[in-house]
C-alpha cells in the first residue's frame, strides 16, 4: 500500500508541476502585456500620430516612424506576396516533388529560420554598400526577404489542401493548367493565401535588427525611399536606450502600438487559417 501511496503522490506532484508550467507561461504573457499597457497607454494621444520625433524635452510624436514603417512594410509585402505566391504555387502545383523542388523547399525553410540580422547584413552588402547610402528601399527589400519564405510556405500548404477533383474538373473543361491554378485553385484557397500574407506581415512589422543597417532611421519626416527612413522599431530601439524620460515614454507608446498591431494581425491570420483547414 505504501508503494501505491508513493505513486499517487508522485503523480499529483507531476500534474501540479505541469499546471505550474502552464501558469508560468500564461503569467509571462499577461505580465508583458500588462506592463505594455501600463507604461504605454498614458502617452497615447493624437500627437503620436500627427507630430514627428521631438528633441528631448519638447512635445512630439511618432508620425515619421509610423509612416516609414508603413511605407517599408507595404513595399516589402508587395514584393514578398508576388514572389511568395508564385514560388509556393510552383512547389504545390508544378515541381514540388522533383529533387529541385525538395531543394527549394529545404532552402526556403532555412531562409525562414535564418537570424533576421543576417538578412540585414546581406541587403547591406548588395544594396547599401554599392550605392553608398542607407535607403528605404534597402529596408523594404530586407523585410521582403523575411516575409517571402513565410508566404511561400503557407501558399504551398494551402494549395496542397485543395482537392484534386477541382483541378481535374477545370482541366476537363479544356482549361490550361495555369488557368485552372489562377482562376480555380487560387480562388478556392483565397483565405489561405491571405493568411500567409498576414503571417508574413506580422513577422516583419516588428522586425528591428535587419533595419538597423539598411534603412538606418531618420529623425525627420521623409517619404523619399532613396533616403534613410525612420521606422517604428528602430525608433523604439533608439529611444528606449536613450537617457531621456520623455523619449522612453514614447518608446513605450511605440512598443504598445507595435505589439497590438502584430498580435491583432497574427490572430486574424490564425483564425482565417482555421477556416480554410475546415472545408
Amino acid at each position, binding site marked *: 500500500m505504501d508503494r501505491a501511496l508513493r505513486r499517487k503522490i508522485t503523480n499529483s506532484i507531476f500534474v501540479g508541476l505541469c499546471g505550474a508550467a502552464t501558469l508560468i507561461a500564461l503569467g509571462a504573457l499577461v505580465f508583458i502585456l500588462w506592463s505594455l499597457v501600463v507604461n504605454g497607454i498614458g502617452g497615447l494621444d493624437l500627437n503620436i500620430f500627427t507630430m514627428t520625433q521631438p528633441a528631448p524635452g519638447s512635445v512630439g510624436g511618432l508620425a515619421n516612424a509610423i509612416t516609414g514603417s508603413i511605407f517599408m512594410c507595404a513595399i516589402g509585402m508587395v514584393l514578398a506576396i508576388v514572389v511568395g505566391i508564385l514560388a509556393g504555387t510552383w512547389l504545390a502545383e508544378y515541381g514540388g516533388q522533383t529533387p529541385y523542388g525538395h531543394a527549394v523547399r529545404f532552402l526556403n525553410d532555412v531562409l525562414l529560420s535564418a537570424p533576421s540580422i543576417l538578412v540585414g*547584413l546581406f541587403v547591406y552588402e548588395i544594396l547599401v554598400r554599392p550605392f553608398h547610402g542607407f535607403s528605404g528601399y534597402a529596408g523594404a527589400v530586407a523585410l521582403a526577404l523575411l516575409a517571402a519564405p513565410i508566404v511561400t510556405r503557407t501558399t504551398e500548404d494551402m494549395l496542397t489542401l485543395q482537392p484534386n477533383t477541382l483541378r481535374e474538373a477545370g482541366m476537363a473543361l479544356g482549361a490550361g493548367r495555369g488557368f485552372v491554378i489562377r482562376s480555380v485553385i487560387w480562388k478556392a484557397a483565397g483565405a489561405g493565401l491571405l493568411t500567409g500574407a498576414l503571417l508574413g506581415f506580422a513577422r516583419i512589422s516588428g522586425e528591428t535588427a535587419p533595419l538597423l543597417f539598411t534603412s538606418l532611421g531618420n529623425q525627420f519626416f521623409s517619404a523619399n525611399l532613396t533616403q534613410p527612413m525612420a521606422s517604428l522599431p528602430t525608433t523604439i530601439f533608439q529611444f528606449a536606450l536613450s537617457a531621456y524620460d520623455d523619449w522612453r515614454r514614447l518608446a513605450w507608446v511605440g512598443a504598445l502600438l507595435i505589439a497590438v498591431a502584430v498580435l491583432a494581425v497574427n490572430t486574424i491570420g490564425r483564425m482565417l487559417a482555421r477556416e480554410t483547414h475546415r472545408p
Partner: protein
Amino acid sequence: MTATTMDIETASQPARGQGAAGEMIFRTLCFSAATLLMAALAGVVVSLAIGGWPAFRQFGIGFLFSSEWNPVTEVYGAAGPIVGTIVTSILALVIALPLALGVSVFLVEFCPRRISRPIAIAVELLAGIPSIVYGMWGLFVLAPWFALHIQMPLLMDLDPNGLLGQLFAGIPNGANIFTASMILAIMILPYMSAVFRELLLTIPSQVREAAYGLGSTSFEVVAQVMLPYVRRGTVGVIMLGLGRALGETMAVTFIIGNSHGFPHSLFDSGSTIASTIANEFAEATSDMHTSALVALGLVLFLLTFAVLATARALLASDKH
C-alpha cells in the same frame, strides 16, 4: 460557316487567349520565383563569406579562439561573443525545456478539452510579440526587479570568494547573461511547446490507453510511455529552440550588458554574436571592423544552420 470556324478556333484556344505561350510564361514565372528564393539564401551565404574574408585571412583560425576585440588596435577575436551566444542559448534551453514539456503535457493530458485550445492560443501569442518589445520589457521591468530581489540579496549573503559567490558575482543592475537567458527562454517557449504538443498528439491513443489499462498513473504513462515514444522528436524540439535562441538579436541586445570578452560569472555582462553586430555594425570604425562583424555573421549562420538542419531531420524521422 465562317462563324462556326471562328467558334471552333476560339474554343480550341484553351480558356480565352491563354495559349501554350501563356501557360509557359506562367510556369516560368512560378519557377523563377522559387529559384529567386534559393538565390537569396545562396546570396546571404556568399555575401557573408566574401564580406568576412578579410577578417578570416588576417586573423586565421585565431579569430574563433581569441577573445580580444579591440577596434582601436584593429585586433578582432570572436571567442567572447561566440561563447556568449552558446552560453545564453543553452541556459535559455535549460529554463525553457521543462516549461515547454510541462505546458504541452498539461494541455494534451490533463487539461479539460474546452479550455485547452484557448490556453494553447494564448501561449502561442507569446511567439507573436516582437523581439524589441521583449527587449524593452526585459530592460525596464525584469532587470530592475531581478537586480533588487535576486542579485542584491545574493550579493549580501554569499561569501564573495566562495564558489557560489563567484558564480553569482556581477554588477547588480540586472543586465547580464542570466536575465538575457530568461528572456530568451520566454521567447522560445511557445515554439517548443507548440511543436512538442503536436508530437504528443501523434502518439496513437491505443498506446496510451494500453498503459493506463495496466494501471499506470498519468505520470508513469507520460514518463515511461509517451516521452520514449517521441524521443527523437524531443531532441528535434530542443534543437529547434536552440536554433531560435542562437539568432535572437534585439531582446538580447537590450539586456545582456554588451561587454566583450568572456563572461566570468552567471550574473556578469556579456555579448552574443547577434548583439555585437546590432550594436557595432552601423558605426563600424574601419573596413576590418566591418569585415570582422560580417565574419561573425557567417559563424552565426553556420551555427544556426547546423542546429536547425539537425532539428528538421530528427522531427521528420519521428513524424512517420
